[in-house]
């Protein structure tokens, strides 16, 4: 006998989105969360792109617990002490229907799980799914760490985040090598609201998102700075194998980023409230597990659906998109009384026809490209060098032509035109 129609494991964005769809379709759904409350175990950089919520929670911006609405997006290239920043400001993002918002995960995840509970989902916290229950090779529920903790359901949706133990146990996860993962580390630094407003040149609820390349020394990766209401998040995303092989520790690399002349003035004098770390399924499309099994669907980070493509680090929206699709596919399968892999196959089709797999497929080379030597070292060094040569006035020497400056800088940094063109074309193919 089943306890529920569906058990969703993990009350992160993916799990809550799945539970919302199922509960609204009138299905009994149990949302299991190992933390004492949704979001209590979760960390991320800080920006949620809410467009995907439009259909799930109309006018979500009136309810969602927001720190600031992002109205400035900057991309910064760092080389030694230099920095080149491309800064885009759009006050339009500061009004409905908005674009991105900084929000804290304990607030955001608890809010979204609350929407699921209001729709009728049963949220059970402080409970870890420890394994799958199978019958005849088919998943029919989960075991939990509570006494008498088995929960039976014809469909289990694994939304248990990166490194999903459930997907692994189901034999759906072939790509578990460390080369597919990065680790994100972050400090949350308290600063008075008016100091943040002044340093980041914003007003009221406006916020800033800065993505940084070239700030991770010998470890491939990137950095970020996000503004909350009265704190600033500063963090790094770092290649796991390179970290393991080299002498640098993440906290030391983060200290160096905070001391960089382009970042120090933004954070100095603040008080570190929190240091946190979390693994990211960096390789995206190339590491995705099987998404559908007999009685089981995998969504969100558990299915490596975080998009880590240099200028974009988006996971929450992909988790919500895939979780909601899993919820709808499970509803359909239950209506037909077929929770086999074939019955649940609509899940993959929904993802293919929507942004989740479309974006991932198009950008499947992006993680590799961004983590490559040219993007990590060459691009920041050449870009900063070119700026230096362009804007240093060397009278009585005459000015040099831009082409010559670029060629000189490429040579000085050991970059051959052939390699640059090849990588450039790859970038155009990937991002174009």
């Amino acid at each position, binding site marked *: 006998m089943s*306890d529920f129609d569906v058990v969703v494991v993990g009350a992160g964005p993916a799990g809550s989105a799945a539970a919302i769809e199922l509960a609204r379709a009138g299905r009994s759904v149990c949302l299991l969360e190992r933390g004492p409350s949704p979001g209590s175990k979760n960390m991320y950089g800080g920006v949620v792109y809410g467009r995907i919520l439009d259909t799930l929670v109309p006018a979500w911006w009136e309810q969602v617990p927001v720190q600031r609405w992002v109205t400035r997006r900057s991309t910064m290239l760092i080389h030694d002490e230099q920095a080149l920043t491309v800064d885009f400001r759009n006050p339009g993002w500061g009004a409905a229907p908005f674009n991105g918002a900084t929000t804290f995960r304990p607030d955001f995840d608890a809010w979204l799980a609350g929407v699921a509970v209001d729709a009728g989902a*049963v949220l059970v916290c402080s409970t870890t799914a420890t394994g799958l229950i199978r019958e005849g090779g088919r998943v029919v529920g989960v075991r939990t760490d509570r006494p008498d903790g088995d929960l039976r359901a014809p469909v289990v949706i694994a939304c248990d985040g990166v490194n999903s133990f459930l997907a692994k146990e189901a034999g759906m996860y072939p790509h578990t090598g460390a080369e597919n993962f990065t680790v994100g580390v972050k400090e949350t630094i308290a600063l008075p609201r008016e100091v943040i407003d002044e340093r980041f040149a914003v007003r009221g609820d406006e916020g800033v998102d800065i993505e940084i390349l070239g700030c991770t020394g010998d470890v491939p990766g990137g950095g970020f700075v996000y503004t909350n209401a009265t704190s600033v998040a500063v963090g790094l995303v770092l290649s796991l194998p390179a970290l393991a092989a080299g002498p640098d520790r993440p906290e030391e690399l983060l200290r160096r980023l905070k001391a960089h002349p382009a970042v120090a003035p933004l954070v100095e004098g603040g008080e570190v409230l929190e240091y946190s770390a979390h693994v990211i399924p960096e390789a995206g499309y190339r590491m995705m597990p099987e998404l559908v099994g007999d009685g089981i669907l995998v969504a969100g980070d558990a299915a490596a659906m975080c998009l880590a493509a240099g200028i974009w680090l988006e996971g929450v929206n992909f988790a919500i998109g895939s979780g909601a699709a899993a919820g709808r596919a499970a509803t359909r399968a239950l209506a037909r009384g077929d929770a086999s892999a074939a019955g649940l196959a609509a899940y993959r089709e929904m993802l293919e026809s929507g942004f989740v797999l479309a974006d991932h497929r198009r950008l499947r080379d992006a993680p590799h490209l961004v983590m490559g030597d040219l993007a990590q070292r060459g691009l920041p060094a050449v870009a900063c060098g070119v700026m230096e040569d362009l804007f240093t006035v060397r009278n009585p020497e005459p000015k040099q032509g831009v082409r010559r400056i670029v060629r000189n800088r490429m040579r000085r940094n050991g970059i051959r035109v052939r390699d640059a063109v090849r990588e450039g074309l790859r970038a155009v193919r990937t991002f174009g």
Partner: protein
Amino acid sequence: MLVAACVKLVDLRPQVDRVSGAVTPSATPGCSAADRAAVELALTLADSWSASSAVVCCGPAAADPVLREFAASGAGRLVRLDVDGAPDSSIVGRLLAGVLGDLGADVVVCGDYSTDRGSGSVPAWVADGLGAAQALGLVQVRSEGVGSLRATRRLDGGRRERLVVDAPCVVSVEGSLAELRRAPLAAALAARDLPIEVVDAPGVVVPAPLATRPWVPPTRVQPAPTGSAALERVVELTGALVERTPPRTVELPPRQAAELILEQLRTWGYLDADDSTPGGTAAT
């Protein structure tokens, strides 16, 4: 025989501004570790004595989900005295004693003090209201047979006091005494809709929350320094080279010690001659 635990709903993660002392509430209500230890002890005692158990809370409806967690862990009855806000400890103690008396509680277990600036006096008021024995601030409790407890209490200087307490009694325990057992999954699911007995508490006066701010000694009027050179004036202002009264250590019984401190504060000008509270502002 009935073993009852008393718990209070508190904010588990309020943010306290270190400079102003201002408290920003969080969205994390719950019971303190000491209260959870109290429930565990009550359940353990009830199990070993084949007695019934109850959890009683004096608080708002927001406490209901937390109370249901205790039911999932095995508590027999859940009773909530419907009070919003934070009445004085003596009132809470009297109200709880009334309910516990009606329930017929023989042994009452409380947390040692609540984490929201609790005074730790509620258990004493409950004991007084019930006319029961009391043993407060316990770090260890063992059953010595039905209705009898052998307990260890923390004293100053790392010492311990061992006590034997018999029902009817009220004990309060530290959070380290026990960890609340994990509720079976089926019980946790079943407890979600469990009814809670709500007892009205009409006419309870809830004082406005204390407005607190850091205590700052009142300023005293100082004559301007008279020296002609800047250095002289600074030395005069700081009193650096002035002969001073050396600190002295006195050992006195508490009453005389307090009088001496007040006398000294009057001498330094921090207290008026007829004032017995420091400064007269924001006195705590």
